[in-house]
């Protein structure tokens, strides 16, 4: 009896999971909904679902990718800002619909399940190496903060810099910057309310000032002119020594050593700032 139960459980489970007939969301930008519920990866859509896109505030992308059984992958984009496509269908209101040709044989038309593995996330195998701020000692003077040394590995463009104090529990401060090293290698930007000290720096999009998920945060020490001159020599020497250390040690060990030194610099700067 029990063995029949085991079989009875195994076979329908496999069948139900394998022969999915409903369109499935592979990915969806913010703004896409089905029956007023936000579309998320993996959600299956019944044929009766009403899919709409309404451009969210500060939203830029409008891509929706659906896995349509028997038809392959459908891409939707909504440049008008408000769209209502039919699911996996040809009718599209204001939508650019792009279909991946998927039929290479009769079996493939039935389901990709019979042919290949589920679509995956893709990685790009190419060197760029930029994109994240770097640990740096920054000068603060009457013109503002000189962000340049921390932005050496960032492509030119408009960014939101998200700055969070390393020790104190304070709300993060944000600053907009139009970064172009060819125009202003120092990247000077007024930053009122940012006291000298140690900070965690992240790069975000101008539209929403949310940290870029691919960006790795950096540590920066902001020092006023007087302290900067004194600290800069020590910082340069330390960076040179750490570069040598990196030849025989791991990057994480070097980063830990660098952060330890930066923490001591931040402490000096903050103590001097308090005295004044």
């Amino acid at each position: 009896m029990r063995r029949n139960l085991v079989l009875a459980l195994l076979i329908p489970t496999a069948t139900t999971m394998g022969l999915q007939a409903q369109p499935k969301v592979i990915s969806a930008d913010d703004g896409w909904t089905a029956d007023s519920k936000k579309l998320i990866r993996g959600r299956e859509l019944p044929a009766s679902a009403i899919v709409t896109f309404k451009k969210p505030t500060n939203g830029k992308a409008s891509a929706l990718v659906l896995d349509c059984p028997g038809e392959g992958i459908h891409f939707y984009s909504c440049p008008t800002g408000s769209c209502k496509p039919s699911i996996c269908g040809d009718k599209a209101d204001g939508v650019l619909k792009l279909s991946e040709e998927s039929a290479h044989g009769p079996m493939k038309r039935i389901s990709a399940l019979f042919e290949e593995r589920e679509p995956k996330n893709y990685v790009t195998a190419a060197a760029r190496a930029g994109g994240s701020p770097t640990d740096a000692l920054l000068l603060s003077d009457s013109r503002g903060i000189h962000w340049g040394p921390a932005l050496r590995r960032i492509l030119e463009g408009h960014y939101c810099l998200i700055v969070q104090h390393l020790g104190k529990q304070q709300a993060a401060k944000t600053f907009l910057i139009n970064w172009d090293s060819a125009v202003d290698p120092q990247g000077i930007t007024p930053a009122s309310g940012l006291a000298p000290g140690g900070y965690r720096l992240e790069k975000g999009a101008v539209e929403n000032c949310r940290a870029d998920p691919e960006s790795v945060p950096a540590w920066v020490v902001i020092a006023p002119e007087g302290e900067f001159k004194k600290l800069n020599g020590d910082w340069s020497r330390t960076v040179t020594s750490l570069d040598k250390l990196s030849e025989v040690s791991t990057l994480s060990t070097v980063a830990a050593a660098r952060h330890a030194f930066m923490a001591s610099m931040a402490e000096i700067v903050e103590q001097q700032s308090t005295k004044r």
Partner: protein
Amino acid sequence: MNPFLSFHFWRGVAIIIAAAALTWVLEYRGWFDSLEGVAFDFLHSMVTPGSEKEISNRIIIVDIDEDSYTNCFDGVAPLNEERVLELVKEVASRKPSVVGIDLLTESKKYAGLYLNKFNPLRDNQPSKIWAVDSFKSGDESGHERLNKSSFVLGFNVRAPPPELKWAPPIYPQEGDAHVRRYPRNFALSTGASEPLVVKTWARAVAEEYRRPVGSELDHGPEQVFLMHRKNVRWIPARSFLDACKPPKEAGSHSDNPLTRLGEKLTLNDQEISKVLENQIVLIGGSFHHKDEHLGPAGEISGIALNAAAVEAELSGDFLREWPRWKMFILDVLVGVILLFFEIRSPAKTVRDKFIHVAIAAFVLFLISAGMMYFNILWLGWNGLLLGMLVVLIIELNVENPKMNEHHSN
């Protein structure tokens, strides 16, 4: 009694089919990625496919290693575009057959530089294939990759000059974060009414290499599994740039585990020209572990991964999976054969049962290795092992062996 007529046999067949079906679905969903990954990596290190003998040393990697990065690019990335173009120009002047540039040149401001200062790069002798990053992180989890407009040498890929050839060097990442597969084509949304089906970077490079002799590449499956062989040769990028060329006595390579596959060359100018002539040259960067991926043999730089993909295109030295439905039939067939032997010589004790499962696992592994020799990947034995374990558990915990014997008779 004929074993094929026994209840024991048909119950076993039913369990094998159910387990294979369940595994089939779970495998599709990536649930076995880690398990299959371990098996694949082990097989990869053990088995040499028969096709390896055809592999030549036609691929040379010009690598921006740590040393070149520090001395030629001031240790700053994104890399100085002007210096990148200078490197490409220098490499191209050595008359290779094709140059693949695996460096992203997405900054719009250098379009002018490309147009005005580097017109010689428009020359199609040799052909140059530029890498394009066509995707960006999409949702909040940061995992999705969505299409976006993308730039190469400052040009939007939707409207590049005709002589500017580009392709995306992209690879699917398995559930265990490893890169083992190589997609040969990719559908790319460009905002037009139909998607642009583009060749991936390695395929584009390989086709350019083959084009002058008119031979076509194998029309194989859309996705294959890569083999990583030690057939590439490495030259540091620094050797090509006058501004940062190493002194003669110091032409060494940075010690980077990402570039351990292949032979590292330390050559003078004349020797470099001789080595590069009519070959495939791939320009990439292993510096600072920025373009680092997990391959079957551990960490590997993106340019080495691409080199393996180019070689796979040219020599057919890759592993292909049969369509999944064929694999399912194979899973069931092998399972039934194992079941047959089990019924002919049934295990009498718990210890014997475990020994039988272990022997079966070994046999399955050998079959898998044998298929790998013929460039076919079969990892579906995960399901068979699962099926056998289900049978074992049922027999140990649910059934009374004597009753089972009674049923059979």
